[in-house]
């Protein structure tokens, strides 16, 4: 007895540097794994481009800025999909719902509102966007009602929705493309004017850094107050530094991508600025859709980790029966969760149609698969109860990086699909292995 004790004590002491680091910082190993995979994808595509095509196009400010914009639409919806999958449901209708909302918003801002308010009225984009999100939330709530109160499996309800809303969108617009959208509305999709510029980006970055520092300090205060174990100071410092460095890095990156020359020239003419000899360097800064994703991500994270609602989402996912016995109205929760998913699909429709500057019937096709893949790659367990918003956004970034990377190095569409599909299956398999090991 005493022998085994001694042995376990001596073997426990020279703990590996890595495991000590992990336990001190309380970082999730799978999170590190995902960041690692992302880095691998980015560097891999860059090197492949550099070696095979003679030009590494991936790790350039221009590509990464575009990547951030392209990730927004999927990322926004992935945040909602986390709630859906955590509660053991699925939503296959988000892509079609996105298309439907986009068409309706297009009709509202192009065909209806201008005749009442006049073309370019400042309220048009607000009303259109609000209608789109409200429509999404309503349709989502309806799905949720069918699932919770009528007992139809989510898979079937949303598979039906996948067809119904795509068809409905086609009927409304008779298959036509609606464009151009309202000029203010179009800013929500990014582009040179739809970004906050260098100064704005720095302000956002500094606020972000302040929030990180505050979070670390406040966390220590809370733990001290309740006499919980504190993280070592070096670990907290490290986490704070990494957080701030990431934010500042992102600001430097988006500020390093200048407006194209043509747009600079037009802008200079309109504002009567003379372009100096070497050209005028105007930074894009953070694109508006990226900021929308950021706001969605932060609010959803707060919702999931700091409110009763989020607590109940996880509880229902872990044990629906126990949640009901604890007095949680699980049916109403399902309706609310699908309403949130629908709302985010509507918001995503704003971003996607604004980016295209038009509403087409094909908008959002196959998005449901990318969104589900993003959530699952980001660590949301299909058996329910587990998943984070941050992971899903990272998952969306991974999916979009693969997609963009393959386009950049010239893989054709067929190969792209094969790769994306395989990656999804592989990611889930790795996830299963990881969970089995940690059990």
């Amino acid at each position, binding site marked *: 007895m005493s022998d085994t004790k001694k042995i376990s004590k001596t073997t426990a002491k020279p703990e590996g540097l890595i495991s000590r680091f992990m336990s001190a910082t309380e970082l999730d190993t799978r999170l590190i794994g995902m960041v690692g995979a992302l880095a691998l994808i980015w560097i891999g595509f860059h090197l492949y481009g550099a070696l095979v095509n003679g030009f590494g196009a991936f790790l350039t400010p221009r590509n990464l800025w575009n990547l951030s914009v392209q990730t927004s639409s999927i990322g926004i919806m992935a945040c909602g999909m986390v709630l859906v999958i955590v509660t053991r449901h699925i939503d296959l209708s988000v892509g079609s719902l996105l298309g439907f909302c986009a068409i309706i918003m297009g009709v509202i801002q192009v065909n209806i509102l201008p005749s009442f308010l006049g073309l370019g009225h400042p309220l048009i984009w607000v009303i259109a966007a609000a209608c789109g999100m409200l429509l999404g939330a309503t349709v989502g709530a309806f799905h949720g009602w069918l699932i919770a109160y009528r007992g139809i499996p989510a898979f079937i309800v949303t598979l039906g929705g996948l067809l119904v809303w795509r068809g409905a969108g086609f009927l409304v617009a008779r298959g036509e493309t609606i464009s151009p959208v309202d000029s203010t509305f179009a800013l929500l999709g990014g582009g040179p004017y739809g970004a906050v510029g260098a100064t704005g980006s720095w302000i956002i970055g500094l606020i972000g850094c302040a929030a990180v520092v505050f979070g670390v300090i406040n966390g220590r205060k*809370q733990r001290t107050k309740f006499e919980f174990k504190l993280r070592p100071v070096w670990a907290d410092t490290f986490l704070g530094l990494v957080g701030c460095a990431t934010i500042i890095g992102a600001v430097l990156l988006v500020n390093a991508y200048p407006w194209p020359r043509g747009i600079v020239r037009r802008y200079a003419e309109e504002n009567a600025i003379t372009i100096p000899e070497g050209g005028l360097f105007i930074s894009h800064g953070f694109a508006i859709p990226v900021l929308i994703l950021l706001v969605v991500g932060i609010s959803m994270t707060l919702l999931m980790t700091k409110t009763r609602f989020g607590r109940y989402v996880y509880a229902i996912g872990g044990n629906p029966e*126990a*949640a009901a*016995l604890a007095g949680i109205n699980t049916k109403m929760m399902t309706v609310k969760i699908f309403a949130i998913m629908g709302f985010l699909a509507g918001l995503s429709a704003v971003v996607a149609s604004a980016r295209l500057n038009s509403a087409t019937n094909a908008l959002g096709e196959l998005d449901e698969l990318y969104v589900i893949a993003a959530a699952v790659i980001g660590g949301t367990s299909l058996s329910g109860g587990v998943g984070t918003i941050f992971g899903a956004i990272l998952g969306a970034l991974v999916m979009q990086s693969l997609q963009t990377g393959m386009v950049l190095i010239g893989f054709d569409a067929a190969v792209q699909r094969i790769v994306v599909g395989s990656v999804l299956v592989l990611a889930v398999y790795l996830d299963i292995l990881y969970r089995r090991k940690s059990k």
Partner: protein
Amino acid sequence: MTVNTGTPLVEMRNISISFGGIHAVDDVTVDLYPGEVVGLLGHNGAGKSTLIKCLSGAYQADSGDIFVNGEKATIKNPRDARSHNIETIYQTLALADNLDAASNLFLGRELLTAAGFVDQARMEAETRKIMARLNPNFRKFQAPVSALSGGQRQSVAIARAVYFNARILIMDEPTAALGPQETQMVAELIQELKRQGLGIFLIDHDVHQVKRLCDRASVMKNGELVGTVKVADASEDDLLAMIILGKTPAHLAA
């Protein structure tokens, strides 16, 4: 022996509930006084758990009334039951395996900060306090309850019932999955709660256990109440006879 005078803490009168034509509980009346432990005995499928779920709010009786402190109570869902200070420890424990002890303990009744957010730190601190009393060896406050042993999980479920000042406690086979030492711990807890004046419904298979812990025993068979006897007057054989034969022995029938 407690003397049962005055208003019972709970009275379930003429409760019936059926599922698809099968009378799971058929016209059963039971009551419970403060400081008393009433055992519910019977075979699997005798209707004990179903009866008790009408009280905890998981099911709604088709007919019959429930009185709490002599007043008629409407219990439509678990929330109603909780508002009458009725707490239940289910056989399955009803824990969300993916959440930690504190989240489970406060599930549905989270402590909030002034800003309306869940106050995880305060909930964990409260959990540490109550666990120090119930199960001083409990350490895994950060781990999801799936990582806990059977006894530790049981103590989380018990803590949940005890923390919110239950007056009426329903325990559905609380020791079924436990080792001897943990069973003893539960037995001691029942005695302590009894002293504090709680009324406890104890569903159990083990006649020996009922004999040891309960004041009265109500026996059910095929959804019907066979009879309620004072445990002090009945031998283990008497109780077994009631469970198996469905008849109250003559010397207890009065």
